[in-house]
């Protein structure tokens, strides 16, 4: 494998040892990051599901109310009543950093403080069902904002968890074992070289003694 391309030198060995230390440290950190992200994510996704079910039920019943309201008055009247909204929502965006994932925080302000300003029409010519319908929709608005916050955060965190998990696995199962294998290969190769040098020296010494004094050590 990769060991065939490794230079069995001391410099390479030092480099690989440094690389292994970095990899092990990175692996530990990323694993911690993954665990913490996962913990937060599981809390958040449970809330996400809860809020979503609430919002969907809310919208469903609001839609029903609107249908009833529509039945009670003519289409033109209904459109006129809803034509010019009084209320306006201003959204304040903020970001929160959770384990290097930027998750959104939404804060909203209505243009007027009066919560009755969602009724953009005079009450004289509209049915009371419409008031109920508008109110039911107004009631789920805070939940809808919270849903947006949760769901976006969940999406971002899920992507980050997936990325981190891949990195952890790559380090754990590829980079670290490979580096260790290479370190072992170089160490053994260097030891082998040292032994062979020593043997060569001994042999040369023998030959020189033989030549000078016709003397053998054995």
């Amino acid at each position, binding site marked *: 494998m990769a060991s065939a391309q490794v230079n069995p030198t001391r410099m390479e060995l030092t480099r690989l040892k440094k690389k292994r230390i970095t990899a092990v440290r990175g692996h530990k950190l990323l694993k911690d990051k993954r665990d913490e992200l*996962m913990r937060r*994510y*599981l809390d958040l*996704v*449970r809330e*996400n*599901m809860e809020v*979503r*079910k609430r*919002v*969907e039920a809310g*919208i*469903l019943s*609001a*839609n029903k109310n*609107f*249908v009833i309201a529509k039945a009670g008055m003519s289409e033109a009247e209904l*459109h006129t009543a*809803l034509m010019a*909204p009084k*209320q*306006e*929502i*201003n*959204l*304040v*965006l903020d*970001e929160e950093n959770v384990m290097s994932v*930027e*998750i*959104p925080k*939404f804060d*909203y302000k*209505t*243009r007027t403080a009066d919560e009755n300003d*969602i*009724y*953009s029409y005079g009450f004289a010519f509209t049915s009371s069902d419409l008031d109920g*319908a*508008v109110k039911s*929709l*107004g009631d789920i*608005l805070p939940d*809808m*904002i919270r*849903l*947006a*916050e949760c*769901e*976006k955060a*969940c*999406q*971002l*965190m*899920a*992507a980050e*968890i*997936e990325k981190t998990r891949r990195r952890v696995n790559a380090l754990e199962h590829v980079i670290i074992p490979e580096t260790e294998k290479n370190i072992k290969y170089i160490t053994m190769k260097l030891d082998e070289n040292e032994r062979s040098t020593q043997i060569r020296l001994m042999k040369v010494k023998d030959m020189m003694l033989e030549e000078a004094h016709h003397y053998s050590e054995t």
Partner: protein
Amino acid sequence: MYKIAVIGDYDSIYGFATLGLSICPVRNREETVDKLHQLAAGKYGIIYITERFAAEVTEVIEEYREQTFPAIIQIPGVSGNTGAGVGGVKKTVEQAVGSDILFSE
């Protein structure tokens, strides 16, 4: 100041106008794609889209998935709940955990 928009067929979304949300009635896929790009480039922090239209433009929604803003959120329309919203939540669990361990029944 940022705003909130709602995309969908007119019957599903006209009520949101009273709350002060911007409503963007659309009729077909092309309009939805145009509107989505236009809103995402503008000052909109949250875009709600009805499940029926969201199903047609999944690849556009996917483009904005990695960005913090805007948040594109699916809501059921007047024609009923298709379960796509809940499905989306389950999908993130699958992505994060590997399999859906929380909501599988």
